[in-house]
């Protein structure tokens, strides 16, 4: 029955590939918010778990009865463009206050199985009053209540708290709002992905800012790669096995999580690993199993997700003026440019598209548009700003106009 097997295998492969990419986009999938996705991950959990474990060293926990799947993404993140976002129309990134409140709220929620929004706010108020670093939480201020609600709504999305009665949003208008929550303590614990707890490091608070990068590395350090956890430390004491494991995981973690992996950003060991026959073979197999199209070039590697599943945002896309402008700016950004040059290009674009967003229509418009577009390019690893100079990165050539390399007639292309 090879034909049937073929079909079944094809179906399974497709499901596994989808499951992997869905988890990459949303490392915590709950049955409540995405029932179909969760069901697929639940059914195909074994091959998906193996894929993540083998290539990235990431643990996937699926709780069929509790209704969630959590991929614990461990890595020291250098990309600041993927923040927590407010669940409102603007999807504004969380600010300092919201992040801090999120942590305080999570700590307070761990103590109780059920609570109301008022009691929780009291507890948070008392906790912040007892803490001389975190500013006091005051429910009398509307902005504070708003931040508090944003935090709770994010926790609701993750399933860590469940609204039994009432709506969280009501708290914005009145601190008297009645909302009853049930708390999932295990899920709250699972929200933390870093293998080393922040409190274990026992860093004095005034040193946190100074040693920030070191701290990020410290909280994401895993013991299984040997004492110094391999990274770029040649003197570290670790076995050959640990070293290979570390190489594979560190390369694949970047590859599956970031838009482009440039060889220049890798250590010599990592480069050698990717160039080795084993490395190449694994690369192909991993991409294939996850349903990515592998793109290998002289300067680096990238995984293309043609379905656009495993990504928080797309490029090129017409979702915003900045993205369209970014695409068009790429045409002129064939060599390093200054911000001023980009602004000139941006204002030319504004002339060319008179119907573009009003946001960019005032005097400061071109500057704003240029910097927003640049941010988009940076998000996708296509450009890099350094010392006032904007440098296109190799992968930017993917989006070049087919025949525009020779003339400056890009603007008349139709």
């Amino acid at each position: 029955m090879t034909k049937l097997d073929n079909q079944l295998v094809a179906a399974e492969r497709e499901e596994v590939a989808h499951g992997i990419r869905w988890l990459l986009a949303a490392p915590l999938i709950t049955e409540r918010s995405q029932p179909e996705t969760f069901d697929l991950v639940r059914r195909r959990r074994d091959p998906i778990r193996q894929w993540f474990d083998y290539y990235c060293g990431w643990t996937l926990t699926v709780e069929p009865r509790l209704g969630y799947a959590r991929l614990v993404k461990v890595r020291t993140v250098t990309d600041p463009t993927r923040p927590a976002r407010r669940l409102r129309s603007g999807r504004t990134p969380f600010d300092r206050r919201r992040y801090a409140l999120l942590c305080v709220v999570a700590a307070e929620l761990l103590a109780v199985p059920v609570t109301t929004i008022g009691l929780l706010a009291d507890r948070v108020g008392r906790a912040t009053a007892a803490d001389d670093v975190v500013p006091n939480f005051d429910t009398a201020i509307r902005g504070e209540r708003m931040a508090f609600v944003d935090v709770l709504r994010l926790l609701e999305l993750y399933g860590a708290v469940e609204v039994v009665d009432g709506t969280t949003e009501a708290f914005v208008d009145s601190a008297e709002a009645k909302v009853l929550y049930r708390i999932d303590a295990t899920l709250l614990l699972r929200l933390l992905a870093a293998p080393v707890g922040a409190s274990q490091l026992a860093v004095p608070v005034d040193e946190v800012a100074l040693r920030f990068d070191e701290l990020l590395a410290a909280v994401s350090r895993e013991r299984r790669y040997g004492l110094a956890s391999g990274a770029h430390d040649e003197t570290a004491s670790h076995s050959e096995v640990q070293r290979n494991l570390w190489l594979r995981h560190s390369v694949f973690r970047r590859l599956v999580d970031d838009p482009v992996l440039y060889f220049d950003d890798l250590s010599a060991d990592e480069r050698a690993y990717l160039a080795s026959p084993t490395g190449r073979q694994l690369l192909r197999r991993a991409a294939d199993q996850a349903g990515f199209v592998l793109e290998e070039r002289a300067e680096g590697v990238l995984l293309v997700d043609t379905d656009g599943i495993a990504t928080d945002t797309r490029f090129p896309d017409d979702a915003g003026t900045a993205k369209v402008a970014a695409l068009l700016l790429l045409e002129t950004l064939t060599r390093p440019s200054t911000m001023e040059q980009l602004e000139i290009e941006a204002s030319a674009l504004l002339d060319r598209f008179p119907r573009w967003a009003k946001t960019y229509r005032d005097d400061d418009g071109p500057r704003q548009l240029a910097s927003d577009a640049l941010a988009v390019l940076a998000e996708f690893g296509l450009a890099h700003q350094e010392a006032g100079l904007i440098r296109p990165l190799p992968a930017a050539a993917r989006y070049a106009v087919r025949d525009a390399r020779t003339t400056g007639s890009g603007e008349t292309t139709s």
Partner: protein
Amino acid sequence: MDPIRVPPEMFRFTSGDRAGLDVSILHAFGEANERLETALSLDDVRAWLRSIGWLEAIEDDELTGRLKQLRDWNLVDVVQNHSENYRTAGEYERRNLQYSLTRQGEAAFAGVVHAMNVLAATGALQTAVLDAIADRLGDLVRELDRGTNRRIFTALLELEAHLEALRGNTKQFNGELQRLLRADGANLTTFHEVKASTVAYLQEFLTNLEHRAHTIAVRIQQVEDHGVGLMQLRALTGADLPQLTTSDPGPAWLEHRRAKWAGLRAWFLPVDGSQPRVEHLHIVARKAIITLLQVLDRITESRRRTSSAVSDFRELARWFTVVPAQDDLHRLWSTVFGLSSARHAHLAHPDPELISSTSAWAEAPPVEVSPLLRTSGRTERFSRTGKVRDVAAVRAARAEQARAERAELEAAWDMLDTGGPVRLSSFGTLDHSVFERLLDLLGRALGAAPGRGGGRRSTTSDGRIEIVLRLPRDGSTAVLTTPRGQFRGPDYDVEIRTAGQRPVRRTAGGRP
């Protein structure tokens, strides 16, 4: 008990800005009354005040003012003493007027004193009290046989006092216990110790509780056999009550005794055969032990697991507060929580394998970006997702083959369409290939979680074929025959539907 009505001004002296003085004045009267001095002059009041520790100087005016106020509240009464000679009006006022507590004042002060005692007291469950109750009941039985009325009276009063102590202590202890169960936070170590010792205490109390309760119940029965009414009447005679008012205090006294006796019975031997209260005590104590042990477990458990997460979260809150730049906030979030999405390009080359992996990006042909996006800033809606169709075109042959296989498979699935629920056994004899497909569908259905009605529902990955499976009530076995052998299994209720609205066909060996 009748509803309690407190006279409106009875406790006014405990509040207000002069409450301290007012309470002290009543205290002074109380102390004096113990020395059998009931009527005090202004100077006496002052002296007594000093003796109970009120050391502030008080002007005469102020003191008379407060006494007048207390009089208005009906707590203090004033009488005149005409037996002395007075030279001035001031002296008359100082020495002629004598103050004494009214009945209400006495009660009010006693109430306050009692309240303070309750506040300071700690409840306890004392086995000694239970023993004392049993002993006094034994005394009563003996005295009823051949004792005097006076001894019956004292034994009865002692019994009542012990019962009162039991009630009071139990109430208080239970209150403290429930507060203890509610309390969280505090110092974990002391909390731990208090709870552990409470558990030990409760366990000791529970030992032999039943035995003691039984002894008491038996003795109550013995007293009842002698006649409670008779016993109470004899006690009344023994009490030798003074007649201070016009009415006879006897009936009221007897009424009181009856109420107390009823209370005793309710505790140990209820008349209506309901559960004695002492058993409630048992239940409460047991429950408290269990709850306390659970709380203890949870504390130990949470110390091991959650507390570190709690301190991690607290520490992170501090980090988020002091981290310098906006970008660092987001990096901290992504690193510690690992909840951020991956990010990838979605446009690929039509045939990626045509391009060498050693060529530079600049040399390789670019991916196809919608021309419309470049010219007008819009993407064609229909091509939003750059589908892999191009790849399929490159491998047309394989795709064609896959389609053919698919068509064949679908034909087989169509054949399996039951057109409604049938028993698995009704499939009877099947071609082996069709049987394999059926088996695949069954496998999918059994892999799904059972729904509300107990049915398992599943679809193929493309959603075209739906299968519903229910376990038969009669538990019979189905036998399916294929050219290669026989299949046995539970005779499920099976319903297979194709979504394509095709004409329903019957299965090979299915129903007509």
